[in-house]
């Protein structure tokens, strides 16, 4: 990518570009590492999509179930999709899995990273609607503990935030701000985490036994040790639905506003975000039920952790000179993460 990008640049810049590239060569590129983590998750999702379960009628039933509770305009296409999959389960699931495989490989390969990230946004939005029922956010059953607002929409968000470009002449206080700018990146973070706080306080989630039931339901089909963990966690929150929801909502609000704080407290709130995401992943999502052999993806936990890492304040602000925006971005993406 470096050579391709540099080819279109004025000769006077070549020396400085070469120096910049040489400097970058020895430094780890945080954004590229985060892109690779995203590629790894896409590859995991693709391989999970090739599981036996996904080629059975259970897959289209799982899709069809996401229509329940959604408005008709949202539910109808989901039902159509589920019917289509039921008629051609092997063909369509093979196509789905292969698309996700290509996205993962594309992000991991430097020359195709932009194409793959763009494709991942389109694919994620389609799956969010047709496969996840918009993460059930329009129903009363959305909860941050069970994966709202839909894991797949976070893939799209990450693809945008990790887009290999730098805004001209701006200082990026964290990686997520490099492509879209700090105000937009912070606003996206705020909306996401405030929405999670809102979902935590929905009547269905703050009922006395709501959280207990949600966690206890994850026990089915899990290995003994994980089932025991789920049972223990469920008993901890038994009849404590309201208190647990309020505590969770407060933590989520703190996380939401954390990116507007100075670097040190911002880091503390990001650590809190990572801890909350990890707890949700283990106890609320049971590792995406992958260990049951029927998980389609690792669910939202790892993605929220990856998202938090993209907002981790950098020591020295990343600056992109106006006239070298494209080139410096390309050099950065073409630099090995040593």
């Amino acid at each position, binding site marked *: 990518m470096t050579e391709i990008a540099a080819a279109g640049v004025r000769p006077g810049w070549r020396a400085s570009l070469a120096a910049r590239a040489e400097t970058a060569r020895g430094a780890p590129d945080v954004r590229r590492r985060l892109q690779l983590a995203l590629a790894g998750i896409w590859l995991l999702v693709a391989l999970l999509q*090739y599981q*036996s379960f996904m*080629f059975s009628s259970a897959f289209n039933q799982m899709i069809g179930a996401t229509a329940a509770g959604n408005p008709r305009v949202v539910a109808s296409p989901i039902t159509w999709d589920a019917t289509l999959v039921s008629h051609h389960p092997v063909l369509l699931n093979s196509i789905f899995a292969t698309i996700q495989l290509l996205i993962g490989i594309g992000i991991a390969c430097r020359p195709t990273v932009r194409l793959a990230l763009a494709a991942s946004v389109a694919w994620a939005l389609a799956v969010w609607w047709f496969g996840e029922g918009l993460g059930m956010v329009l129903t009363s059953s959305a909860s941050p503990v069970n994966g709202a607002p839909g894991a797949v929409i976070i893939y799209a968000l990450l693809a945008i935030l990790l887009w290999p470009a730098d805004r001209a002449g701006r200082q990026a206080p964290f990686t997520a701000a490099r492509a879209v700018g700090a105000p937009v990146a912070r606003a996206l973070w705020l909306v996401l985490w405030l929405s999670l706080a809102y979902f935590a306080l929905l009547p269905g989630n703050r009922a006395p036994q709501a959280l207990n039931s949600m966690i206890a339901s994850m026990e089915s089909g899990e290995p003994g040790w*994980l089932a025991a963990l789920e049972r223990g966690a469920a008993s901890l929150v038994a009849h404590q639905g309201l208190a647990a929801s309020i505590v969770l909502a407060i933590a989520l609000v703190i996380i939401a506003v954390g990116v507007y704080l100075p670097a040190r407290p911002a880091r503390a709130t990001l650590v809190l975000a990572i801890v909350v995401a990890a707890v949700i992943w283990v106890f609320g999502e049971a590792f995406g039920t*992958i260990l049951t052999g029927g998980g389609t993806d690792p669910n939202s936990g790892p993605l929220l952790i990856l998202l938090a890492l993209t907002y981790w304040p950098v020591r020295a602000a990343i600056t992109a000179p106006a006239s070298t925006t494209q080139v410096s971005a390309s050099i950065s993406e*073409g630099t*090995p993460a040593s």
Partner: protein
Amino acid sequence: MTPSWILDILAVIMLVVAAASAARLAVARPWQQGTQAVLADTDVSHLLMGIAMAGMLTASLQTLPNDAWAVVFAVLTAWFGYRVIRDARASGVRALAGGHCAPHLIHAAAMLYMFVAFTAPAAHASGGMSGMAGGTGGMGTLQVSFLAFVFALLLIGYSIWDLDQLSGPGAIGHYSLAAGRLAPAAVLVGATAGPGTAGVPVPVSGSAGSPAATDSQPVDACAPATSGRGVLAPWVATTSRIAMGATMAFMLLIMI
């Protein structure tokens, strides 16, 4: 049931990897290099893993019994474990993540785990592991499924890392624990054949091939050569490893 044609395609890919590894060994002739012959271990492991995985993926290919494969991969795991420890002593803990022996250790350990933890479906209780599709008996599963998940994550991680390095500027040259001081295995193998020998890797590092490189300096002994043509080209070894790692992760996940 995962369609058998998917498993068959992967079995073919594994046989291609095994064939490429055999070709690399045949062209490089490591057995003619005296004591350096042991540095062919990565290609030998690819060859064995390719055959074993092809046998696991398709019922029509009978290979060795499970116990025999378990012994083979126990030996390979011990060997690459020794290599990683040696790297770690020379280069620090970075060897665990950045060295070339660590992925091979994970590959070998994952294979060992699959053969040890495999539970055949009831209808194939005496049929060993051959053929994951399993016919009418359904697919086998793995005990301690969390370990399968962890291995799958590690294999995916290394495959993604390899893809990134393969597609980057300088490709394989960026692999190093201590740049400029490491001697890739195939370089050491090919060094005694002399620079310029057709198809044989030549040293690219000042210390590569020197006796000191094996004792006083850190040696990333599993690193692919940084030069070479035809089947000895570095991308062949790396592509083989990517294909093998991704296929192994797939097998682990569908047997959970």
